[in-house]
């Protein structure tokens, strides 16, 4: 409370002082003649404009160099997906064009502000328009825009396209809910089983229909684990409100919409381990991962790709994190073989199992699902699970 009063008191004091300064300058202007004071003001403001231009440009370039490592495609912030570098290059081309325009227009703006400050006895030139000039500066931006639009749209249609009929890919599912992500893999059959939101219960968070055989081998891991170099189709859904599936390191983003599955297809190009090795070259990643413990591992060693939510979904929006691990093909297979079917571990034989006491196809008694075969990702099979 005391500090609050102190702040208010000092604020009031500052205001009073400033108002007095204002009054005094007004009085001074009256005494010295308004025109003379205006010319003096013009000179001072003109010089300020020039100073601002220099300082502003210097700070812009300084900050761009200082924070280079945050910018797309530079330093450690390199894309880890196959389509990422194209987007980063688009970004940098746009940065180049807009940067040139930014610098030139600012130099013109503030230089004119300095050069043509009001002087005594000078009259402004009468220049109402110049059609030739105006046509030129309509045409130049139009041409640059054409270049950016064409490149942008080619990239966009490439990136946003769905998988082709004979593409080989892995399909996984991410479901946003307040306030966590559920991940689901199709299991050895390569098919994500049917879901119905009316079937959602505490033990069946995704509303999987257990009478659909395709669901029996689906599993729900804690981390999003993907093999490097393999095309992934993420089926994105939401359980309650809008969410957005955002993988910043992979340049992947797509809203999760309740009742309407969306998708994003991408190919990871770097394993987590490879990305860590690259980060280890940068001094900012040598800092201890725990700021309170200088002995802790350096940041690059503990680095992980992350999945975030990018669409406001309520008060826990900021905390919807999942770890993304990109591994080699062998590691991926080993990992897959360890995963256990959600149905088998959590539902089978319980009260809410609709197939309780029933024999499952191809078995005589409930057993754990075996390791996946090589052909986990057959296109023809997986497309049936879409929609």
């Amino acid at each position, binding site marked *: 409370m005391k500090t609050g009063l102190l702040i208010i008191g000092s604020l009031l004091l500052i205001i009073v002082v400033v108002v007095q300064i204002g009054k005094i300058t007004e009085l001074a202007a009256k005494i010295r003649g308004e025109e003379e004071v205006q010319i003096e003001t013009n000179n001072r403001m003109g010089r300020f404009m020039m100073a601002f231009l220099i300082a502003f440009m210097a700070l812009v370039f300084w900050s761009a160099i200082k924070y280079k490592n945050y910018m797309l495609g530079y330093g450690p912030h390199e894309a880890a997906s196959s389509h990422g570098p194209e987007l980063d290059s688009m*970004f940098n081309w746009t940065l180049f064009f807009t940067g040139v325009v930014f610098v030139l227009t600012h130099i013109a703006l503030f230089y004119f502000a300095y050069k043509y400050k009001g002087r005594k006895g000078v009259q402004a030139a009468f220049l109402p328009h*110049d059609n030739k000039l105006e046509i030129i500066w309509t045409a130049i931006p139009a041409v640059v825009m054409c270049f950016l639009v064409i490149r942008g749209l080619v990239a966009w249609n490439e990136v946003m396209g769905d998988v082709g009929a004979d593409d080989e890919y892995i399909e996984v599912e991410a479901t946003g809910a307040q306030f966590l992500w559920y991940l689901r893999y199709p299991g050895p059959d390569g098919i994500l089983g049917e879901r119905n939101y009316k079937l959602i219960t505490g033990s069946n968070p995704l509303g999987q229909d257990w009478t659909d055989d395709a669901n029996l081998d689906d599993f729900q891991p804690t981390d999003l684990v993907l093999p490097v170099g393999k095309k992934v189709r993420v089926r994105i859904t939401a359980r309650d409100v809008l969410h957005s599936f955002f993988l910043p390191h992979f340049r992947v983003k797509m809203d999760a919409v309740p009742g309407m599955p969306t998708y994003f297809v991408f190919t990871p190009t770097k394993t987590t381990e490879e990305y860590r090795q690259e980060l280890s070259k940068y001094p900012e990643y040598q800092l201890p991962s725990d700021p309170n413990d200088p002995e802790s591992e350096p940041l690059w060693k503990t680095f992980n790709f992350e999945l975030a939510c990018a669409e406001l979904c309520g008060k826990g929006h900021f905390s919807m994190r999942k770890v993304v691990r990109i591994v080699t093909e062998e590691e991926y297979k080993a990992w897959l073989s360890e995963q256990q079917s959600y149905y088998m571990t959590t539902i089978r034989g319980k009260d809410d199992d609709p197939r309780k006491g029933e024999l499952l196809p191809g078995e005589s008694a409930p057993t754990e699902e075996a390791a996946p075969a090589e052909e986990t990702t057959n296109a023809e099979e997986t497309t049936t699970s879409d929609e």
Partner: protein
Amino acid sequence: MAHATTTVQDQETKLIEELGYDDHFHEHEHGDKYKSNFITKYIFSQDHKIIARQFLITGIIWAIIGAAMSVIFRLQLGFPDESLAWLQPLLGKWIEIDAATGVGKLSQEFYYALVTMHGTIIVFFVLTAGLSGTFSNLLIPFQIGARDMASPFLNMLSYWFFFLAGVVMFFSLFLSTGPFAGGWVAYPPLSALPQASDGSGAGMTLWLISLTLFVVSVGLGGINYITTVLNLRTKGMNMWRMPLTVWAFFITAIIALLSFPVLVSGFLLLMFDRGLGTSFYLNEIFIGGQALDHIGGSPILYQHLFWFLGHPEVYIIILPAMGLVSEVLSTHCRKPIFGYKAMVYSILAIAFLSFIVWAHHMFMAGVNPFISNFFVIFTLIIAVPSAVKVFNWISTMYKANIRYNSASLFAIGFVSMFISGGLTGIFLGNSAIDIQMHDTYFVVAHFHIVMGVAAFFGMFAGIYHWFPKMYGRFMNETLGRIHFWGTLIGAYAIFWPMHYLGMAGVPRRYYRFDSFEYLRPFEDMNQFITIAAIITFGLQILFVVNFFYSIWKGKKMTTKNPWGATTIEWTTPIEPIHGNWPGKLPAVQRWPYDYGKDGREFIPQIEPIGPNETEVH
């Protein structure tokens, strides 16, 4: 000097009497038309000059509230571990105090409510009503030579619906479940379901009522502005002789009238979903342990309806600011605005394009990616008329004789902000880049600079410039200049670093950044932004003090036309009177930008074209 100005004024009066148009206004209105007492003169006033001031002061009050909210949530973002217990007297239960340590935390729910209210208030109440409402009301009748608006009564209603909208929104701040907290865009299902967020209960109901009232206000105002411009122009004031301010207000009113009703239709469907069990926006939702019956709707439908207003809305905000800046810049450069017709055509082009780009807010919303192709093309085409405007403003300053004061400083600052913020739009409008940038701080930086700060700069330029017209006094220049330099530097200090945050993938609308490893390195930057925001907010208090102090104590206006402007609002008496001009209405003889022509510093619009003079078209 004093003698010379008197003769100029006498000459002007003579010109109006000789050439003006006699509408016999004062013959029919003996004395006080409305027999006004305090209430009809200052409160339920039908005079456009009073209504303009009502819009402005209400806008300023809302701006203080909206900006103060941003300071509070910036404290949370910059200093998430500091105790905010000292804010408890103001925020009450929204500061959650840990009984053991005494550390006060801003509640998550209320953080999002602040973010939401900040956006809603600034976009609608300040930059729509406070900016366009103020200056359309003040300047349209003055600059086209009208006695008042076409319908002074609807004009009064327009203000009072805005006031009512404000009252409802203000009440929603005190609900026990808190005001609406689902973002100013209010996307369902979050905004449709009270189970999804506390603020989506009564808070959202009041939010919807408030904004519906607001749209009524915009509609009543808009009809009036359009009718007045089309029907009440004085003799000689053809469309190509209108100042760019009037052009901007006119086009803005048309955009608003075409787009705001679509927002209401979107809101109506949302109200049905909330209250009547319909499923326009809802489909297959499981929330709060319950599967809802709503089936078959699409949340994306709402986004289409919302952004069909939402995108034109940003032009509803920025076009009036552009108009004000064009006028202020030309007047104080003592030079005609460069490419007047190109400026008008670019306003028209921007207005037209603003209706066919809305889905660029929805590239990543799950709409068919093919559709995005069209929206990318039209969005990036907007860069062309915008560039033309920028180049024309800069050319207006070429070989000028700039008179520096708070108004012209803010006009120049506007151009800088519009360039900086406009260029980042080229990144975001390109859907391929938007994949990464969508909903990050890059977007926050972009729209705050281009339509937040820039529009505020335009508004400040307008206020400093026309303050003498409104109150017969000047605002203090020294304070105004401190205000300008502080705000220019402060605004860049706040929003420039956000570009880097956005590039690094920091999502917007996060309460804390420590849940994610990749968001941790930005602590210093967030602290810097918060400190810059607090200082910049403090400087706005300086403006508010200057504004209210100057209303009563500012330097008095001694001549009718202190800026040496050509436009006809400066031919009215210093003491405002009902009907604006005491005798005849002035007749307009030329375009509004004859500055520095034929060796004369300026030629008023009411002066006929001389025998040896060529008219500028």
